[in-house]
């Protein structure tokens, strides 16, 4: 009798735990069209749609959390949230500290945007966001790197003359350049960087990674991922 009660109690506990598995998704919220905070105060953008869909397919309850970019990896490792879904490119350097899922956005180009067509991107001051692959690329080129905590500020630096150009994801810069009314323009050639955008997970969360990989593969296979890419980035962007 006692054993029966104990086993039922244990089953109830573990079953309850399995059903109520809430996954916290950490994003930056400052990188449209990937992720941003809309005027109602909610996380929105391409990654909001992808994240919600992945959670639905993996049968998980998901909660969205925002976190500043420069502490996004340490806070994942401290357990503040379980997944990083913030336009983070898959690189070998990051792979040493965290695990990546399959990419859900194909490897994309990064480009320079400047306020003048003859901006000196080879040796001048180029701004980028701190801790990004673009910042690493600028640091290794001959230009002087000027880093900012948010992508917004790196563009503002070009507008107010602190930097001659900003180097960031082309998909991030394209709407900004288009709406700038001629104040900003793309210069130089685009550069392919990174292995596409993937979910960041802790090294010990192998089960969760497997769940998300299955869901991402499924979304690629049935074309729903391409639909979302086209919805947020326009028909000209590279798809799977």
């Amino acid at each position: 009798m006692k054993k029966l009660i104990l086993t039922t109690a244990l089953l109830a506990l573990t079953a309850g735990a399995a059903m109520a598995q809430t996954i916290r998704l950490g994003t930056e919220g400052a990188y449209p069209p990937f992720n941003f905070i809309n005027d109602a105060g909610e996380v929105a953008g391409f990654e909001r749609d992808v994240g919600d869909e992945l959670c639905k397919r993996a049968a998980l309850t998901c909660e969205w959390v925002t976190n500043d970019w420069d502490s996004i990896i340490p806070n994942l490792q401290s357990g503040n949230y379980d997944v990083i879904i913030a336009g983070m490119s898959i690189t070998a350097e990051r792979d040493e500290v965290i695990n990546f899922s399959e990419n859900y956005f194909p490897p994309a180009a990064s480009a320079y945007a400047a306020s003048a067509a003859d901006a000196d991107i080879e040796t001048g001051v180029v701004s980028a966001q701190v801790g990004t692959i673009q910042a690493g690329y600028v640091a290794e080129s001959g230009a002087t790197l000027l880093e900012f905590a948010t992508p917004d500020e790196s563009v503002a630096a070009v507008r107010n003359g602190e930097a001659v150009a900003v180097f960031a994801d082309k998909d991030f810069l394209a709407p900004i350049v288009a709406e700038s009314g001629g104040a900003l323009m793309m210069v130089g050639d685009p550069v392919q960087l990174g292995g596409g955008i993937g979910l960041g997970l802790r090294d010990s969360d192998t089960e969760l990674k497997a769940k998300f990989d299955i869901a991402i593969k499924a979304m690629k296979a049935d074309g729903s991922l391409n639909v979302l890419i086209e919805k947020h980035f326009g028909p000209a962007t590279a798809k799977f």
Partner: protein
Amino acid sequence: MFSSCADPKSIEGLQWLLCYLTSGKHLDFYWSFVTVLTLLAITAPVALAFGFVGALASRSPLLPVRLVGQGYTGMVRGIPDIVFFLFFVIALDQGIEWMTHQIRCPDWTEPIRQGLEFRVCPEAKVPQNSAAQIWHSIYGFGLAIFTFSLVFGAFAANVLTGAMQAVPRAQLETGESYGMSQRQVLHRILVPQMWVYALPGLSNLWMILIKATPLLFLLGVRDIVYWARELGGSKTQAYEYPHSDWRLYYFLFLLCFYLAMTHFSGLVLARVSQRLSRGQATAAGEAQRKAAT
């Protein structure tokens, strides 16, 4: 907020501005002022309490108590605020989770620190993963309040120690000669009389506390600085209310807010100081006596 703001891309001018200033994000911005004022309202008395305990401990005749009191004030005052904040909040957060882990998961075999990760069993996470984000925000805010109180309590302890030593010895001796115990002397003579000496230091601390509230932003709490930076940045058409770089105006608004707070605080503290100086042997007390005659 208003039904006429349902389609922001089709309105212009003053109506656009009104709709913009009452959008969901802006309402969060206005609520964050309440967050900051709540921080001040809770931190001030708690810091004063910490300061009191620290001051009394520093003056204690018992060596271990005295060491704890002096160690507390020395350590907190000796480390830069930002460093202490960033370290202490993480340490406190992990410390609480470590303790709940020991209590709730005694048979967990894996180590808590795995490589760079801090991983406790899911039942020991504070707050739980399944809890709504509001609880996480409140918990983070609570940690911030505790850390603020600890830091400002150390400064308050220093001010109060100095104030307690400034009370004229003759006053305390009179109490002793009346047969009061040490505790009675403390309650009835030392503490009431030390306030006038403590007030300049404490009012200074209050001003510093007001100006230090943006540290909440460093701790990841969505305070007014966070929202000003978020709302001020230039916005593309992906947003409902696109605009250019308006950070100047938002930060100007914050500047005015802080100036108003410190000005108002200055007025209130001047009043309190006047009140406390009545009958005291200080310059202010003397000035009141001369004015009365």
